[in-house]
Every structure is written in structure tokens, then in C-alpha cells.
């Protein structure tokens, strides 16, 4: 099965990606549990293929401010990992690690920024290492970059990155649950189409 557009994935492809997502997010949740010293789970991942304008609306409002940690993947699998988090998740991090809470994004100082970046980085790397182990692919990760800004502007980054090959983006998302609270955050895996083909080939063949 060789796909040219994300839409060509079909049910089997979507199932495979959902499965990959749940193993990756499971690993990420364990890593965060250790870090925040509390029980962290992630909802079953959702695989969505959305147009540019739909994607921003699916995740929130375009002008809504969020924090985002971005890591680029290269090697056997190319693409972008993006971890989006809002105030409640940021506070769970700053309270545990730094011992204070913030009221709004303008109070994010350098310490809070680096704590958030580090947690994002741990979530992303544990997700990707599960994916690499499962598929036998070698995946390199860039240094994490962080931004606190409008959701629409942040999402334009992966959209532009894949803009020459597609009018849609594929997102594998999961929401974090900390103790009893569902936190407003999502982990997005955005592979390019060539890598998606490689990944599907590896995983579907491996299952036979």
C-alpha cells in the first residue's frame, strides 16, 4: 500500500496509526508520572486528517494563546512533534517542579519556560522512542523549541512545513489526565507522507 495523500490511508492505516499512538502516549504518560510524581494517563489517541482551517478549530480558537514545544524528527522518519499545553498543565508542572503557580501566560519567566520545555521534551522523546522501538526505525530528534503564542500561528508551522505536498495535515492526538483531571493539552505527531509510507510498511509487514 503506497499512499500519496493522507486521505488514502484507509481504515487499516488509521488503525495502525492509532495503535502506534497509544503505545507512544502510554510511554510518554509513564515518563511524566515519574517526573510529576503523580498518576498520569493519556486518553486513547485520535487520528485526524484535517484541512488547514479545520485543524486550528479542532484544537481550539485560532487566537487562543497556548504554550507549545516543538521537536523535529529526522532520519528514517521525518516530521514534527508538537506538544500543546494550556495553563492548567503548565501549573501542574510549575507547582511540582518549581513550587509556584501562575495566573496567566505573561507570568511565565525563564524558569517556568525551561521547566515546560523540559517536560515537553520528555513527553516527546518517550513517545518517539516507543515508536522507534516498535518500527525498528532510527529517528533523530532536534533540540526542543518553545513558543507561547496564538494557536493558529503555532499550527501554521507544521502546515507550512508540509505545504508543498499536502493541503491537509494528519494529527495523532491524545489528552493528558492527571489524577482525576483532564488537562487541556495535546500531543501531536505530524509525519510527512513519505515517512508515513515507510512506517506503515514496517508495521504492517511486521505484523504478518
Amino acid at each position, binding site marked *: 500500500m503506497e499512499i500519496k495523500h493522507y486521505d488514502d490511508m484507509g481504515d487499516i492505516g488509521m488503525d495502525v496509526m492509532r495503535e502506534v499512538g497509544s503505545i507512544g502516549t502510554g510511554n510518554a504518560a509513564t515518563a511524566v508520572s515519574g517526573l510529576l510524581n503523580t498518576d498520569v494517563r493519556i486518553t486513547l489517541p485520535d487520528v485526524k486528517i484535517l484541512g*488547514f*482551517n479545520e485543524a*486550528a478549530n479542532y484544537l481550539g480558537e*485560532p*487566537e487562543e*494563546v497556548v504554550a*507549545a514545544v*516543538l521537536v*523535529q524528527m529526522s532520519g528514517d522518519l521525518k516530521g*514534527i512533534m508538537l506538544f500543546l499545553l494550556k495553563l492548567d498543565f503548565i501549573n501542574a508542572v510549575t507547582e511540582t517542579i518549581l513550587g509556584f503557580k501562575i495566573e496567566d*501566560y*505573561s507570568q511565565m519567566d525563564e524558569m517556568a519556560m525551561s521547566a515546560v520545555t523540559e517536560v515537553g521534551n520528555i513527553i516527546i522523546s518517550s513517545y518517539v522512542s516507543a515508536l522507534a522501538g516498535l518500527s525498528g526505525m532510527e529517528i533523530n530528534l*532536534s*533540540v526542543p*523549541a*518553545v*513558543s*507561547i*503564542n*496564538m*494557536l*493558529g*500561528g*503555532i*499550527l*501554521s*508551522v507544521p*502546515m*507550512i*512545513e508540509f*505545504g*508543498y505536498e499536502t*493541503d491537509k495535515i494528519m494529527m495523532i492526538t491524545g489528552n493528558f489526565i492527571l489524577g482525576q483531571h483532564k488537562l487541556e493539552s495535546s500531543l501531536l505527531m505530524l509525519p510527512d507522507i513519505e515517512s508515513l509510507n515507510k512506517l506503515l510498511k514496517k508495521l504492517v509487514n511486521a505484523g504478518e
Partner: protein
Amino acid sequence: MQVNKEIKVGIADMKITRQEGTLITYALGSCIGISFYDPGIKLASLLHIMLPESKNPTEPQVYKFADTGIRETLRRMSVFGGVKSRYICKIAGGAKMFEVQGNSSLANIGQRNIESVRNILRKEQIRLVRQEVGENYARTMLVDAATGKVAIRTFGRQEIVM
């Protein structure tokens, strides 16, 4: 003040209005918002492009790219009676949302978009009178058809009217 009609311009999209109404495009990151205004007939357009140039001569999504997008916008404006020599152009966007290392496309696409748009405008001999570009934050851009004024909304900064 009368209630002003808001017309939303999506990503890789373009809208035109005359006399009244506000054209609005949300949260331009590395993308660029390009507004053309003909003060003679109060004709306003707002284009939201994502990439510097089209690589496909039969590209169906013309508004995704600076070259095909600007060309098609100018064509549509002239259909509505716009006179190119009167056009006033203002642009916003082209930010670098993430400080990533290296010279990847992700690191410099905003700058490449800005340069491409400026080049095309120079070739088309259109006056670029104001620009709010670069930096590291997203911008919402609003164009008022009655006056041609452009407002820029950002997170944590004061609104700019240009």
C-alpha cells in the same frame, strides 16, 4: 458607530469587499497577510498566503502561494474595477514562531515569504506602504474597507493601526 460586517479570510484564501465591511484573517504565523486597497473606489482585498512560490504550473490552490496568490488577487481586483496604479499595499506576518537551530526550511520560511512578497510587489510596481513583519509572534490582521486602515492584533502587545 454602525455595526461593521466582518468577512473571514482563511488560510490559503482571499476575499474582496467594497465600501464597507472588515476583512479579517486570524493568527498569521510564518504566513503572510497581504492587503491591497484602491482608495478611488474603496475596494479592499486580503490574501493569506503560506509559501513563497508555487512549484506546480497548474496549482489549483492559487492562494496558498505568494506568486500565484498575488497574481490572482490583482486579476480579481481589476475585474471589480480596481486600478493598479492606485493600489496601496500593506503586509503582516512572516514571523519565526520557534527558535529552531540550523538552516532548515522551518527556521527561515517566514523570512523567505517576506522576501518573495516584496519581490513580487516590486515587479508588479505596487507601493508597499506599511509592513508589520518578522519577529516571533502571530498577528491577526483586519482591513477596513471604508478607510483602507489595517489593524494588527497580537498577544501581549498593543494593537497597531497602520
